C-alpha cells in the first residue's frame, strides 16, 4: 500500500485530518507575459519592433522566471499544500515536449476547433532523449517556493495520440517508446528532488478502449522510481465507466479526476466496484471551465462527495483540470475557496461531525 502523502503535510498543519490540496497544473498567464512572448517572437522576426519594445532571449528568460515566481507565490498565498508554477514556461502540453524530443518535427498549425490551432508535431524518426524537459523548471520552482512542488508531465499516450505518427508501426509502439523517455525524465526529476509527479493523459478520454496501453506505459514510467515518490494520473472530460475499474491496476498512487464539471454524475462509477484502500482519489471540486467561483459551502459539499468514495486519508482535493482558461482572479479565488473548504472539512472530521461513508482504511 502506498503511503506517500505524509511528506506533504505541513509542519504546522492545524488539524489531525489532512486533505492534501493541490492543483492540476496550468494557470492563466499574466497578460504581460503573453505580450512579452509576442515581442520576443517579433524581435527575432523579419520586421522587429522599435528598439524600446525589443525582447531578446535574456529578457524573455527573465520574464518567464518572473512569471513563475509570481504564480508560485499566488499558489502559496491561496494556501495550497503543494504548488506548481502554473506551467508559465510551457506554450502547450504536447508542443512543449515535442520541441525537446529528438525525432519530432513541426510542419505548421492544424485546427482544433474554430480558429484555435495547435502546432501538431510529426514523429518522423525514432524518438530519443537528448535534453532534460522539466528539471530546470522544477529546480527553479523549488528554489522560489516554500511548499513542496508537484510536477505535471504530459503522458506518453497523449504525446503519441496528439502527434502525427510517421515512424512507428502504430500509436501503441510510439507511446511505449515515449514512455521510456518519460521514465528517464522522471528519474532526472527525482534526482533533482521531485517527490510528486503527475502524468497527464487527457487523450485517454477520447479513446478509452486504449486503457491497457496507458497502463503499460505507466509501468515503464515508474520502473526504478523510488516508492516514496508520489505518482498520479490525471484524466479528464470522458466517460470514466469505460476505464474503471481497470485503472485501479495502474502503478500510480493517485487518480486525479474531473467530476465537478459533470455535477458528480459520474461519482457512482467509483463506488461499484469499490475504489478500495490502495489508491488515493484526487477529486475535482471546482469546475475549470466555468468562470463562476464556487462558494466555500459548495466546495465542502463536493469534498464530502469524495468521502463517499475514499476515506479522508485517501482524499486529495484539486480543481477539475488546469485553470489556464479562466480569468486569473477567478482562478485564484477558486483555489483559495478550495483550500478554505478543505480546512473546514478537516476540522469537522476532527470533531466527528462528518459521517464518512467510504470504507475505513485498514
Amino acid at each position, binding site marked *: 500500500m502506498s503511503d506517500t502523502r505524509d511528506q506533504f503535510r505541513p509542519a504546522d498543519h492545524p488539524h489531525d485530518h489532512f486533505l492534501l490540496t493541490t492543483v492540476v497544473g496550468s494557470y492563466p498567464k499574466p497578460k504581460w507575459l503573453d505580450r512579452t512572448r509576442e515581442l520576443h517572437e517579433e524581435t527575432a522576426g523579419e520586421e522587429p519592433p522599435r528598439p524600446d519594445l525589443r525582447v531578446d532571449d535574456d529578457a524573455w528568460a527573465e520574464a518567464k522566471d518572473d512569471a513563475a515566481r509570481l504564480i508560485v507565490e499566488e499558489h502559496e498565498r491561496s494556501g495550497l499544500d503543494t504548488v506548481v508554477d502554473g506551467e508559465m514556461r510551457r506554450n502547450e502540453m504536447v508542443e512543449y515536449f515535442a520541441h525537446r524530443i529528438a525525432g519530432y518535427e513541426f*510542419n*505548421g*498549425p*492544424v*485546427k*482544433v*476547433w*474554430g*480558429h*484555435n*490551432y495547435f502546432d*501538431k508535431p*510529426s514523429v518522423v524518426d525514432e524518438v530519443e532523449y537528448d535534453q532534460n524537459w522539466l528539471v530546470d523548471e522544477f529546480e527553479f520552482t523549488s528554489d522560489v517556493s516554500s511548499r513542496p512542488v508537484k510536477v505535471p508531465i504530459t503522458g506518453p499516450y497523449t504525446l503519441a*495520440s*496528439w502527434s*502525427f*505518427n*510517421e515512424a512507428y508501426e502504430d500509436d501503441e509502439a510510439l507511446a511505449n517508446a515515449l514512455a521510456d523517455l518519460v521514465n528517464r525524465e522522471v528519474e532526472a526529476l527525482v534526482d533533482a528532488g521531485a517527490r510528486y509527479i503527475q502524468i497527464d493523459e487527457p*487523450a485517454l478520454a*477520447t*479513446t478509452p478502449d486504449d486503457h491497457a496501453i496507458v497502463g503499460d506505459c505507466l509501468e515503464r514510467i515508474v520502473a526504478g522510481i523510488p516508492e516514496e515518490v508520489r505518482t498520479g494520473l490525471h484524466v479528464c472530460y470522458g466517460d470514466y465507466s469505460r476505464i474503471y475499474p481497470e485503472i485501479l491496476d495502474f502503478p500510480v498512487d493517485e487518480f486525479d479526476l474531473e467530476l465537478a464539471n459533470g455535477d458528480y454524475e459520474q461519482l457512482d462509477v467509483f463506488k461499484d466496484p469499490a475504489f478500495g484502500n490502495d489508491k488515493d482519489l484526487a477529486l475535482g471540486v471546482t469546475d475549470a471551465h466555468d468562470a463562476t467561483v464556487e462558494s466555500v459551502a459548495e466546495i465542502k459539499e463536493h469534498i464530502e462527495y469524495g468521502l463517499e468514495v475514499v476515506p479522508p486519508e485517501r482524499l486529495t482535493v484539486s480543481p477539475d483540470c488546469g485553470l489556464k482558461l479562466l480569468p486569473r482572479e477567478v482562478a485564484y479565488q477558486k483555489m483559495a475557496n478550495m483550500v478554505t473548504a478543505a480546512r473546514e472539512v478537516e476540522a469537522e472530521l476532527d470533531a466527528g461531525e462528518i459521517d464518512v461513508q467510504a470504507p475505513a482504511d485498514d
Partner: protein
Amino acid sequence: MERVATTPGLYPLPDDAKEALSDLKGHQRSDLVSGDEAPAVTDVYDDVREEVVAVQRDAGLDRVVEGQARWDDMLAHPLTVHDNVRTEGIVRYYDNNNFYRDPVVEGDLTFDGDVAADLDAAADLADDLQAVLPGPYSLFDLATDEHYGDDAEFLAAIAAFLAGEAEAFPEEVETLFLADPSLVTEPPEEGFDERVSEALDEVAAAVDAEVVAHTYWGAFDERVHAHVLDADVDAVGYDLVTAPEESADLVAEYGTADDVALGLVDGQNTLVESPETIDERVEWFEDRVPDASAPETAYLTSNTELFYLPVNRFEEKVQALAAATEDDT
C-alpha cells in the same frame, strides 16, 4: 478502371488566412461563421478560395473543390449557419481531437443557399467543379433535433434540405461528394437503414451530376452497405487507409456501385504517400475485385477531409493524388 483524382474537400486554411481570420473573427464560439460575415472576413475567404483552387489546378486534380474554408463546424456547417438552427456548446467531432458547435434544429429546415453561393464563386475559377455536402445520415447524426420530434421525420427533413441546397448548385458542378462517415462509425439501425437509402436518393436526384456517397473511419457493415448500394448514387466510397481488407472483401463479395471512390491517401497523417504507393493501392484493390463487379471509374482520393493536416503536407498529398492518375495515362 478510369481514374479520376479528387479529394473530399474541407481543406486547411492557408497559414496567413488562419491568422487573419483569428484576428478578424476571434477565438470564441460566438465568433464562428454565421452566414452573414463582415465584408473584411468575406474578402479573406474569397482569397482563400482562389488560392486553394489554384493549388488543385496546379497539381492537376481532375475535380476541383471550393475548399470549404468557411466550414468552421466541419460537416455540420450547412446547419450551423441556418436561420432556424441555434448553436450550443462545442462537441467532439467523431473520435478526433476536434470540436464543432452542436447545431440544434428549432424550426423548419428551409432553403438556405449558403453552399451554392460558395460554389457560384468557385465556378468563376474552375470548370470541373466538385461540390461537397455531408451525407444526410451524417448530418442527422451530427445534429440535435428540437423541432421535428421524430428520427424518421428529422432525417427526411435533412434530406429534403440538402436536396434543396444541391438543386441550387451551379451547372459547373460535375460531381457531388456526400461525405458520410457516420454510416460506418454509427451504423443506422435495422429498419432505419432503408430510410437512409431513401435520403441518399432524394439528395442524388436533386443534381445533374455524378453523386458519390463516400465513407471513412472503417468499413460498412454488410447490411448498411447493401442499403447504400440500393440508393441511386453513382459511386460508393471506401476507406482503404483504415479498413482496406474489410472494404475489399465487401466489394468482392457483394459488388459495388457503377463507380467507386477509393480513400488511398491518409488525410490524418503527415506521411506523404508517393504516386507509386497510391498506384499500388489501386492495383491491389483491382486485383481483389472480380472482373464482373469491377467499377468503371475510380475516384482516387484521401480517405478523410484534409483540414487535419498542416498546409505543406496537404499540398503534397493533393499533388501525389493528381500524379497517380497521370502515371496511368
